[in-house]
């Protein structure tokens, strides 16, 4: 058990840390891509419905479960689940809350390295690759090692200091320095300046994009207004708004976007909220963190990425670019920035903004595992950081080595970054709504609350959210899982990646088992108020 040494310094700090965890690459690359892909402005209707029916209720659940566990001395998800559901199985369900952030960190930090690398290369003037998009595709392939496994470790064609591995190393060190400094002096301190800096960077890029006008007089249709129209217009392709809203796939994608964007189902918010004091507000804090994420996603991401790409590529080019997040972010946009006036500066600022967004997210992924190592095994900060550093370095080395077509990264993202997240979110909602119960859950949410949460939200959490999650998950699995399951049998790298994930899961379960033995010895659970 944690001895209560770690705590947030300020309320603004915890809100910025949670918002920082949520704001990531998805806000600036995935969201605009999805909105442009699915019926433009009509996408926003299911998007906001999902925000209120799925996103905010699950965020409240995570904050409430976390503060409840923290008040009883636990900061890791296995410990929190142990006091929420006094059952032998519950801590092992919480092991997912260790696996998910750690496994996602292993590949996310590599992408973070790409962002830092691109920011540096733009700033140093090394990204002037001409007007042809293929040059940027070739650069991205060589930088990341898309052509063959092990290519990212081959320094015969690229100098080490120019390689993605070098920038990955910098990001890795930064993350672990921050996590070693602790919750308040590391994560909170960093997020308190990184989040405002991120917004300032985004506003600079936004100002540039909105003043682009019609850069090529020979193509008068490719102007900013039409770019905004491509992103926001209702009534695409002669369809009415009602026909657009009849697209079931769009409702699923909008729900998925809200779900991933708010970082619910990772176990991170639970862990962060566990460091609050028992009477600290969570109702308003959680909404504020979610609002910060939505502002970055809709007001900044929604006005930057697609309009900028449209102005230089036109309708056909943007439709092709938005089919792949990596293609949009690391091939199309660099070309777009290089084509626009002040592009070198804007490109550097944009990729630095992506780097900050990624770093505030990746550092949050380490804290749940650190919490378990410290309170479960009784390790000190130095030992737990060293052990986690070794495990995540091994995972990142695996992802970087199997870089051909980013196959290892894609496989981990599917099984952990999607499947496991849905499962954990469903477990959390069921624990809150059905095990803790909506009466006790509502009391927990209301304690110290500075805004009043309507009582019907409890019924949404108990009935609507699990059903919504189940339907979205089932349909999504039906559409995508078949191909991923088949790949396990056909591609040895995919099989190895899945094996690696299982290995990390087994490690998380073993750590949980050892922690439970320790907790049972130090602090056995009691039937009633076993705190």
């Amino acid at each position: 058990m944690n001895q209560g040494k770690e705590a947030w310094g300020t309320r603004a700090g915890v809100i910025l840390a949670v918002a920082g965890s949520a704001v990531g690459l998805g806000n600036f690359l995935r969201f605009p891509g999805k909105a442009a892909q699915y019926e433009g402005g009509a996408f926003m209707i299911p998007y906001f419905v999902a925000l209120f029916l799925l996103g905010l209720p699950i965020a409240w659940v995570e904050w409430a479960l976390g503060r409840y566990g923290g008040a009883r001395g636990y900061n890791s998800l296995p410990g929190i689940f142990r006091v929420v559901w006094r059952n032998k199985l519950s801590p092992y369900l919480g092991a997912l809350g260790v696996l998910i952030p750690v496994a996602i960190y292993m590949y996310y930090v590599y992408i973070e390295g790409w962002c830092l690398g691109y920011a540096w290369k733009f700033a140093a003037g090394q990204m002037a690759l001409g007007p042809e998009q293929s040059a940027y595709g070739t650069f991205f392939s060589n930088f990341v090692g898309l052509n063959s496994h092990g290519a990212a470790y081959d320094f015969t064609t690229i100098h080490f200091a120019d390689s993605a591995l070098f920038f990955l190393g910098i990001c890795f060190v930064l993350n672990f320095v921050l996590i070693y400094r602790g919750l308040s002096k590391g994560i909170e301190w960093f997020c308190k300046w990184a989040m405002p800096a991120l917004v300032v960077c985004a506003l600079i890029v936004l100002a540039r994009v909105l003043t682009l006008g019609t850069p090529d007089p020979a193509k008068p249709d490719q102007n900013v207004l039409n770019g905004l129209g491509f992103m926001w217009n209702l009534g695409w392709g002669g369809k009415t708004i009602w026909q657009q809203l009849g697209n079931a796939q769009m409702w699923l994608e909008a729900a998925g976007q809200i779900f991933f964007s708010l970082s619910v189902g990772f176990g991170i918010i639970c862990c962060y909220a566990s460091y609050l004091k028992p009477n600290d507000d969570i109702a308003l804090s959680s909404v504020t963190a979610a609002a910060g994420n939505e502002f970055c996603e809709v007001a900044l991401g929604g006005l930057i990425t697609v309009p900028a790409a449209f102005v230089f590529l036109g309708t056909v080019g943007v439709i092709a670019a938005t089919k792949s997040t990596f293609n949009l972010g690391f091939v199309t946009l660099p070309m777009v920035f290089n084509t626009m006036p002040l592009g070198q500066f804007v490109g550097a600022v944009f990729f630095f903004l992506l780097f900050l967004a990624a770093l505030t997210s990746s550092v949050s992924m380490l804290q749940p595992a650190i919490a378990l190592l410290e309170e479960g095994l009784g390790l000190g900060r130095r030992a737990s950081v060293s052990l986690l550093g070794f495990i995540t370095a091994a995972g990142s080395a695996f992802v970087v080595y199997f870089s051909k077509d980013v196959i290892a990264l894609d496989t981990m993202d599917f099984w952990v970054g999607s499947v496991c997240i849905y499962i954990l979110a469903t477990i959390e909602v069921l624990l809150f709504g059905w095990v803790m119960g909506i009466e006790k859950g509502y009391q927990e949410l209301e304690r110290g609350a500075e805004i009043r949460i309507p009582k019907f939200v409890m019924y949404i959490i108990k009935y609507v959210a699990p059903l919504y999650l189940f339907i979205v998950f089932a349909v999504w699995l039906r559409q995508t899982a078949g191909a991923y399951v088949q790949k396990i049998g056909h591609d040895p790298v995919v099989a190895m990646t899945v094996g690696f994930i299982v290995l990390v899961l087994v490690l998380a379960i073993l750590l949980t088992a050892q922690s439970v033995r320790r907790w049972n010895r130090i602090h056995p659970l009691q039937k009633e108020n076993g705190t």
Partner: protein
Amino acid sequence: MNLGGWIIMIVSVGFVTIFLGWCIYRVVREPEAPQKLHAQAEIDTKDQD
């Protein structure tokens, strides 16, 4: 950009901006939490009477 596009963009961007502004206003309006003692009656005075 058509009228529907303008409406959906202004409503969406306006909503998230006002939503964030309202949240920040509510957060800064309230004092920091440590001194928040909700119920004086919860303080145990060790009074035996």
